């Protein structure tokens, strides 16, 4: 997998024309850096799904450009988009969208085969991923025999099997209970931070803020607000930089804290908590 930067430049999407025209996404620009987790939130009908579809080369923008590592994918001919989707994007859906007639292993392997892997290689890769995700004893299970969390882990394995640089997730925790939702969030974070993949999540779930590097608020097709997340190095809680209870410069890095207590603990023994800053700079709305 090679790291890729996704750049969205003045993207607009209109539906209909004339009096019936609806602008779902209006002049949106953003950049997603390798390894970054971006959470897009917003009310229903704000254009989140349309934006996600455009980011995933499923829908063409009416205006503007979407580029991946400098290649304007929004301008590629229709015939090339399936290949781009196969190799550059991994999709995770709210309803898991596993193929009901295939086992967990086959659901993952089929995507590798679509990308050109031989059947044996595809199954090996699928097996390795599912074992890594704790589903080694569920390989032959049909989706109907899996729990919601297991289905979503299979879906994430499927999203990763072709080693795409970008993961696009649509409400990945919506159909899961709180515990399983956390599990999935941790998994997505691992995917981003350990494997250096960018993750764009569209969700209403506030809990996802905890793992996001940036939170973008989409309303009426436009980004209204940006929240940059950071992790309290002491208690490991996710905190919004702008609303952090306290902050401290140490060795040229800014640390954000959920409370003064955490800051004091950090100050007493920084080496104990010293972690590289994981938030990313430079994202703009």
């Amino acid at each position, binding site marked *: 997998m090679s790291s890729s930067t996704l750049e969205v430049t003045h993207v607009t999407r209109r539906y209909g024309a004339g009096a019936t025209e609806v602008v779902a996404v209006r002049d949106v620009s953003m950049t997603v850096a390798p390894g970054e987790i971006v959470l897009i939130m917003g009310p229903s009908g704000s254009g989140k799904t349309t934006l*996600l579809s455009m980011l995933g080369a*499923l*829908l063409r923008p009416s205006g503007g450009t979407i580029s991946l590592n400098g290649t304007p994918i929004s301008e590629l001919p229709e015939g090339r988009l*399936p290949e781009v989707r196969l190799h550059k994007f991994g*999709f995770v859906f709210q309803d898991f969208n596993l*193929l009901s007639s*295939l086992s967990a292993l086959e659901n993952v392997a*089929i995507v590798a085969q679509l990308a050109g892997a031989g059947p044996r290689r595809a199954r090996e890769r699928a097996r390795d991923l599912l074992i890594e995700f704790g589903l080694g004893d569920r390989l032959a299970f049909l989706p109907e025999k899996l729990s919601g969390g297991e289905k979503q882990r299979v879906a994430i394995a499927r999203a990763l099997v072709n080693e795409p640089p970008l993961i696009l997730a649509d409400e990945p925790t919506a159909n899961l209970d709180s515990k399983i939702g956390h599990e999935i969030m941790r998994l997505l974070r691992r995917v981003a931070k350990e494997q250096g993949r960018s993750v764009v999540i569209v969700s209403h779930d506030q809990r996802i803020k905890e793992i996001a590097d940036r939170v973008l608020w989409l309303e009426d097709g436009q980004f209204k607000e940006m929240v940059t997340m950071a992790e309290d190095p002491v208690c490991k809680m996710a905190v919004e930089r702008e609303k952090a209870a306290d902050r401290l410069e140490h060795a040229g890095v800014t640390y954000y804290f959920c409370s003064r207590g955490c800051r004091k603990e950090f100050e007493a023994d920084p080496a104990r908590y010293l972690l590289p800053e994981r938030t990313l700079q430079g994202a703009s709305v």
Partner: protein
Amino acid sequence: MNRLAIRNLVQSKRVVLISVGGVTLALLLMLTLDAIFTGVERQITAYVDFSGADIWVSQESVRNLHMTTSSLPAGVAERVGEVGGVAEAVPILYLSNMIVTGEDRHLAYVIGLPPDASMGGPWRLAEGRPLSGSGQAIIDRSVAEGSGTSVGDEVEILGRALEVVGLAEGTASLVNSVAFIAAEDFAQLRGGGEAVSFVLVRVAVGAETASEVAARIETEVEGVTALPRAEFAAEERRVVRDMSTDVVTIMNLVGFLIGLAVMALSVYVATLSRRSEFGVLKALGAKTSDLNRVVILQSLLSVGIGFVLAAALTFALSMIIPSLSANLTLRLSAASLLKVAAASVVIAGAAALMPVRQIARLDPAMVFRGK
């Protein structure tokens, strides 16, 4: 993707049952009809095939039995017998008429045989004895059983009551049967006259082929047509086939259309029921051609299973039916299997057309809209 096609089929048991069942029945209709007609064709020439003659000599231009009349001068058998390469020549009389048993009337080829004829008689007697003189008849066993007639009973042939002295085996078809009477009775009942219908010829051992001898007969005996047995039988089959082609074509077309309708509907329903899954695959990066392959393979598999089942059932019927009805023989021919196999491929392809179009129009972005 092949695995997906197979798994989809296996999982949609009800759809598969309907589609495979429907196609099986439609193809069974086509195959059985072909088998019946092939069987009838074979049965209809049974008399020619088993007559014992190597060559059939008839009135000039008469080339078969069915719906024809052949009249040759009485002395023609003698002249044919003198032709080089001919070992034996037996004149027979022939007319298509009825065997009347009480209220029942059975269509039959009535054959008038000279005394001690070495050819042209029944080749297998199930019961009774050969003809030994005037006032006797041999009819087919199944006709006798059907009408409650036994050896010793009387039947009416050419308007005269004749005693049944024997029951022949294998001389009935779905269309008619063969009845044997003495040539003397035949001539008398027909109003006298010395004419014969056909001359059956046996070629001398070691002589030329039947074709060569037949050609010589035509050259040396005026006003006759001489055909080797196989050719005469083929002409007979051709006439029957020509008469039944339209019926067979129409019934085959009906079978084809039923099969197509059932398959088209079931493949369409199967695709429709997995529309969202096809959308997911498209979103993940599957090309439309990948998905088409799944649909076409599903269609081909259903039709293939249907074809195998239909062929097996037709084969089973061809074993069972003759034991239930002696007059009906089903014969599954390679030509028929090839024809129906080709029709099956067309059905599978045509049935997949609509779903293929549906897949082409599928918007992959639907996966994010929860459709």
